[in-house]
């Protein structure tokens, strides 16, 4: 094994993962896991660490004996292995240990500070992952053995978006598509023209305003990278623009979710706002997951807006190329400007959406892998404690503020101990199902009214109703697995991208780009906030 020394760090990490998996298997860590509230993921921790550890050791051993090559196995597995395992270990440590610890510490510090650090800064595993990536790269630096693998983050994030395609319905995509085309179209073009106008006012060169307008208007650093060669941007203009966008983006990643929570935005509203107002596309995904990392509603909306922005990129490149080329006499081909800039991964997203829509992952009657089963079933009943709580609340008049339909739904839930149709109609499947679904919709309305503070319900009552609804919501195993993978892909991708944000890049912020960027960025964020609150009201997601 001539190169075993070179791959020692990877072998050690693989070994540690296997040892950890074996320790978890013995159950020694169970009390600590219970303290951290991660015991439900005990099986996952064991399986994942044993499998990943095994694969890593095999890969590192192959690397130790095999000459580096250019095959698919080499490029996509053997060479990036070190970086992949480093990011995975970080993701596991953050998800299973750091985030729960931050949560516990925030709860303990709340009486002292007067606010919950975890909630205010949205320090979930995604945000912590990005911060850990940024911290690592700007302190010790990315270890040499991990350099190639860290670059995989871009590919992995694209895979996450492709997988997300399986979670949309035609109705969602159509509705969100309309919103996003209008909002993104307005704000992309509006910001591009605002920056070009500001450039004119401040008498800045066209190359600078061109590159800044794309970055501020479309999708941040990605647009800057795509447009800089087209408008022949000078080195300082590129450096200042990228620095400004990165700094602004990182601030947005923390500020947006906090403002979103304070303003009481729903997932659709926040996803639309983040997807429109945040400059950098990676930070849109991060902010969406920071707003809500438990379910993926916000991410679904934000990514549609992200994709729409990316689809605008070739158009903006074409517009700026024409605008810049007119003066410089430079001629650019349609292929080099539009075809080469088209984000191919969007085709993958649409493919997964199409495959899911024709029922390849779950039966066509299911709604994106989820279906509602309101038939009689012991397993869909609420627990005895919940049933008692609901009964007592009804007797105490806690439901007096409900409308007659909602009240009837709650009464029926207490009567049947589950959400279902009428017993007498059980032989007519369609009617039975329709009545059951209508009751579920009424109960969802009760929870929504409680959330909007239109009525007051105790947390136990809300929890009971929530559980009753959850019991009849079934999920396809394929879709659940795909979603779990997707969340890990996003976490992996965002940690890896965090590792590519250097202090040096951020501190390039300055010059006229920071003046014009701050004016355009704040205007875009503030205007889109009000427009989203005003326009995006109905929730189409399920």
């Amino acid at each position, binding site marked *: 094994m001539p190169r075993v020394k070179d791959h020692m760090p990877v072998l050690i990490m693989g070994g540690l993962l296997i040892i950890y998996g074996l320790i978890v298997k013995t159950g020694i860590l169970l009390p600590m896991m219970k303290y951290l509230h991660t015991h439900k993921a005990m099986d996952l921790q064991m399986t994942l660490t044993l499998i990943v550890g095994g694969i890593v050791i095999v890969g590192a051993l192959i690397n130790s004996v095999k000459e580096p090559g250019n095959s698919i196995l080499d490029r996509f597995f053997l060479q990036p292995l070190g970086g992949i395992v480093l990011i995975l270990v970080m993701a596991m440590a953050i998800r299973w240990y750091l985030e729960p610890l931050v949560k516990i510490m925030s709860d303990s510090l709340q009486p002292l500070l007067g606010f919950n650090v975890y909630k205010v800064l949205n320090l979930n595993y995604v945000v912590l992952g990005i911060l850990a990536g940024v911290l690592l790269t700007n302190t010790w630096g990315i270890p040499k053995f991990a350099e190639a693998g860290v670059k995989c983050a871009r590919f992995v994030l694209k895979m996450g978006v492709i997988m997300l395609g399986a979670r949309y319905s035609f109705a969602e995509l159509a509705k969100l598509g309309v919103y996003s085309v209008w909002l993104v179209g307005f704000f992309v073009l509006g910001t591009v023209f605002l920056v070009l106008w500001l450039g004119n006012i401040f008498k800045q060169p066209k190359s600078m305003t061109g590159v800044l307008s794309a970055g501020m208007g479309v999708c941040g650093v990605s647009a800057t990278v795509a447009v*800089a060669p087209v408008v022949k941007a000078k080195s300082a203009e590129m*450096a200042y623009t990228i620095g400004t966008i990165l700094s602004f983006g990182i601030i947005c990643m923390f500020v947006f979710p906090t403002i979103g929570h304070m303003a009481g935005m729903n997932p659709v509203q926040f996803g639309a706002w983040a997807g429109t107002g945040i400059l950098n596309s*990676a930070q849109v995904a991060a902010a969406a997951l920071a707003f809500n990392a438990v379910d993926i509603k916000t991410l679904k909306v934000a990514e549609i807006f992200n994709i729409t922005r990316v689809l605008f990129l070739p158009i903006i490149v074409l517009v700026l190329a024409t605008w810049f080329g007119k003066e410089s006499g430079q001629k650019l081909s349609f292929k080099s400007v539009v075809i*080469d800039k088209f984000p191919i991964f969007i085709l993958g997203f649409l493919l997964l959406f199409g495959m899911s829509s024709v029922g390849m992952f779950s039966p066509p009657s299911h709604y994106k892998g989820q279906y509602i089963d309101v038939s009689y079933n012991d397993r869909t009943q609420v627990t005895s404690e919940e049933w008692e709580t609901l009964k007592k609340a009804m007797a105490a008049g806690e439901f007096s503020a409900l409308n007659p339909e909602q009240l009837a739904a709650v009464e029926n839930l207490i009567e049947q101990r589950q959400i279902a149709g009428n017993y007498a109609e059980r032989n007519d499947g369609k009617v039975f199902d329709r009545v059951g679904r209508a009751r579920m919709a009424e109960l969802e309305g009760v929870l929504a009214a409680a959330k909007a503070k239109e009525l007051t319900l105790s947390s136990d009552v809300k929890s009971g109703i929530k559980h009753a609804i959850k019991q009849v919501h079934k999920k396809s195993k394929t879709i659940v697995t795909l979603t779990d993978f997707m969340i890990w892909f996003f976490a992996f991708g965002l940690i890896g991208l965090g590792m590519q944000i250097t202090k040096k890049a951020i*501190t390039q912020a*300055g010059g*006229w780009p*920071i003046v014009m960027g701050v004016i355009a960025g704040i205007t875009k964020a503030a205007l889109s906030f009000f427009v989203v609150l005003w326009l995006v009201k109905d929730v189409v997601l399920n």
Partner: protein
Amino acid sequence: MAGHVSAMVFLVSQKVSLFMFKHLLLCTHGTEGAQKAEAFVFKQLTADPNLKVSVLTILDEDWRMMTGDDWLNSSKTHTAFLDHVEAQVSEEIAEEWQRIRDTYPAAAQAVFLQRTGAIAETITRVAEKLHCDLIAIGPYQKSKGLFIHGEKGLRARIKNDTLHPLLPCPLLIAP
């Protein structure tokens, strides 16, 4: 720190004649500090006809990290961006060299070199390769922060703790 080193070298330079050096590597990227080094070398040191001067300008390898967290573009777009950066920075470096030649007649005899890499490592590698016996750089300049007129290229500083352990020959910091 830079101030101390500068003073120290000056004390040395008064006792040990600078005429003892044969090949000087002047590192410049056209900033205010670097221009002080250019002036010091071409006005005061080139009186020695035996002193050969090589002017080194480095294309900072950290440009590769300036794509930041961009994940949307293809590798083709990334390559096009980095090619553009290289061409653009090379053009700006050529302008700087022309300015040096126009400002200092003595610079006509100098050899101009452009290299890509990490700053400290590249300076010492080139000095070793060319068998330079003296390296000259500009003094520490106070950061301009978000100064509105800006400068060319990436804002970067030479770090003493990175450069000093690698030095193959004496380092002169121009006042």
